[in-house]
């Protein structure tokens, strides 16, 4: 465990150095992340401008959902998404060989090597907007509520991580699918909306997207004090199950990795 912490500290340091070496990239990334996180809010404002309720969720509830989406996904985008984005290239050009021979978990190395600190802007904007919305809705935040909230966010990020891991592992069989991560960025937007919108949709669609619908809705319900114990338990069970299954799937897929020269 100590070895992993030491390696991760090195990653954190290296990524900070990289951030300041390419300053134009830093500036551009901040602009891009500001635009997209603002878009999440603007999108919900526009969608709710002509309708007051959607599946029983009020406009304010939906705006809290949009703010929470920014918060939850900012953690994932900051610490993991860039690593997943490199999966296809790493596998396609055979760089995975170098990862596999290192005395450390290949999954850990593949998913944690890149840290995009600039996604912090998404977190800041999300928190700012959430606090504003909660003050409008007269929701009082206590220390206990905050601790519980952090706990739920942790499991939400675990679900996103495992979901991406399961899908991106497919690049072992289809290494040319470099746009698979782009598709996942789009699919993430499923989490921006209430779970109820998927009711009545195809069973297959529901089964595929169900874990994503828990990610943002559960912390929102918890903050608005509408969550039941079963909601949180479901999130935790799903998170643990998916982490286990995605790790198993990665290990299984590696047996089919043939390297670039094969």
């Amino acid at each position: 465990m100590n070895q992993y912490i030491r390696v991760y500290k090195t990653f954190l340091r290296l990524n900070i150095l990289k951030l300041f070496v390419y300053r134009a990239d830093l500036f551009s990334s901040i602009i891009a992340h500001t635009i997209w996180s603002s878009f999440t809010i603007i999108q919900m404002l526009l969608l709710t401008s002509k309708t007051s309720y959607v599946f029983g969720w009020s406009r304010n509830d939906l705006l809290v959902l949009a703010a929470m989406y920014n918060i939850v996904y900012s953690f994932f985008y900051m610490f993991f998404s860039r690593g997943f984005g490199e999966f296809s290239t790493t596998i396609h050009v055979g760089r995975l060989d170098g990862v596999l021979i290192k005395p450390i978990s290949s999954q850990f190395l593949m998913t944690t090597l890149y840290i995009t600190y600039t996604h912090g802007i998404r977190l800041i904007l999300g928190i700012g907007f959430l606090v504003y919305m909660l003050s409008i809705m007269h929701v009082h935040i206590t220390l206990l509520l905050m601790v519980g909230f952090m706990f739920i966010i942790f499991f939400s990020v675990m679900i996103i991580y495992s979901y991406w891991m399961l899908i991106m592992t497919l690049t072992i069989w289809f290494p040319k699918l470099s746009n698979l991560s782009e598709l996942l960025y789009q699919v993430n937007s499923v989490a921006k909306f209430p779970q109820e919108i998927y009711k009545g949709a195809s069973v297959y669609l529901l089964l595929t997207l169900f874990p994503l619908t828990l990610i943002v809705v559960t912390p929102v319900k918890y903050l608005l004090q509408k969550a039941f114990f079963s909601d949180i338990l479901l999130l935790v069970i799903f998170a643990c199950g998916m982490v286990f299954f995605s790790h198993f799937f990665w290990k299984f897929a590696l047996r089919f990795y043939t390297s670039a020269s094969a």
Partner: protein
Amino acid sequence: MRYLRIFLLQFQEVLEDRSRITVWFLLAAVTPLILLLFWRGASHINGWTSAEITSYYLFAIAIFAGTMCHHEEKVGITDIQAGGLTMYLLKPFSYIKLLFLNEIVYRMLQGTLGFVLLGCLVLIFPNIFAFTHAFDIFFVSCLIFISAFMLTFIFKTVVGLLGFWMTETRGAFEAVSVLIVIFSGVLMPLVFLPSWMQSLTMVLPFSYMLYFPVIAFEGKLTMLQCGQVLLGQLIWMAALYVFYRILWKYGIEQYTGVGQ
């Protein structure tokens, strides 16, 4: 003849990437499908019926796949910033024509996927689709569709050329993507926007890229309105082409050939 050969070669090259094309198509379909599900739960939808909204988004998926070009990153990053443009400048072909031939192949394949899907849905659920039955409107709608493709092509080329002056173009590209999503009608039919934003969409080129082609095929425009849309598209295309010529003329002087 030589351009036909290039076109066929591009076709072969793009067909090799069939799986990627399918993923790109899914990418275009995800957002409208989610929004479609979202509107099912809306308590009041600004005078539109649920069937009309469904029809709008399904048409939007097919038309978006067939018209929306994505070559700005190739132009701005791969060619201008990384120096790939040098290879094209040395060839006895126009750069923009090569880009056009490459992009037309992608749009043909993705558009075909989109229209096949749409056709299947029309056959299965004929009642939810609004579709023009007048041949003349249908014909003009096809012209609007082709113009929409050419308009997005020239617009995205202009956006890509910003790479001559900007060392990092990602922020600009992201900003353009957001503008397109909001003002072209991907997010929702433009009549759902607040009135001041609706007025704004009329003076921007984005509505001509998706919204008007969709409602033209749905038969929501009269012949006269279709003509006005075509005229608007032509004016924007001409303006953007002039702008492209200016940017290319001055931009090529900035190009260093070894990456910016």
